[in-house]
């Protein structure tokens, strides 16, 4: 077994990650419900199809992470650095994403219903096919690339609440 694979397909919800090096690790298909990864550096990690619902990832460095199909319901991602992250198809209903940096992130087909995206950086974020019901975009930064990927309804919502960069 590859040493980076020891966290794959595991129940890690009660694990204390305080002394673990997490950069580039493979956590795919694991249960990480409610874990505390606040302010941790987890860049390049694989969290595809991982259950991170209710977890605290606030302030975490998450650039280049793979979170395809991850369960991020009610997850705290406030102020997280999610540059170039792959969140394709993730469930982010009710997530707290305030002040996060989603520069160049792939959020295609993500469910962001009731998520709080106030103050986020959405420059060049791909939201194609994303569900944006009751999503809060207050003071969110966006550019023409962001607008090109969303529906007319969501476009007017984003224009009304956010700030064009």
């Amino acid at each position, binding site marked *: 077994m590859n040493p980076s694979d020891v966290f794959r397909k595991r129940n890690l919800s009660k694990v204390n990650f305080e002394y673990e090096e997490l950069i580039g690790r493979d956590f795919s298909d694991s249960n990480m419900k409610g874990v505390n990864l606040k302010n941790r550096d987890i860049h390049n990690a694989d969290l595809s199809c991982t259950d991170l619902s209710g977890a605290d990832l606030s302030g975490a460095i998450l650039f280049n992470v793979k979170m395809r199909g991850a369960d991020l319901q009610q997850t705290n991602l406030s102020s997280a650095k999610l540059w170039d992250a792959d969140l394709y198809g993730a469930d982010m209903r009710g997530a707290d994403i305030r002040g996060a940096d989603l*520069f160049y992130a792939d959020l295609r087909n993500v469910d962001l219903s009731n998520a709080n995206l106030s103050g986020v950086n959405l*420059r060049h974020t791909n939201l194609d096919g994303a569900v944006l019901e009751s999503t809060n975009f207050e003071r969110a930064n966006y550019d023409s690339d962001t607008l090109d990927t969303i529906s007319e309804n969501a476009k007017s919502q984003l224009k009304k609440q956010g700030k064009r960069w």
Partner: protein
Amino acid sequence: MQGRKDEHRHQELLKEKKELEKNRPHGIDEMRRWKHDMGKILQELELYNK
């Protein structure tokens, strides 16, 4: 003449953007630089979208 020059710069920026997309770094400092460089390109490209 101005229009041709602008179009030339536009094409140059698109090319630089493609290059950066192909060369994504993995280290934190390189990624910060990547983000900064890409941000500058997007900022200039945004002028062509207005």
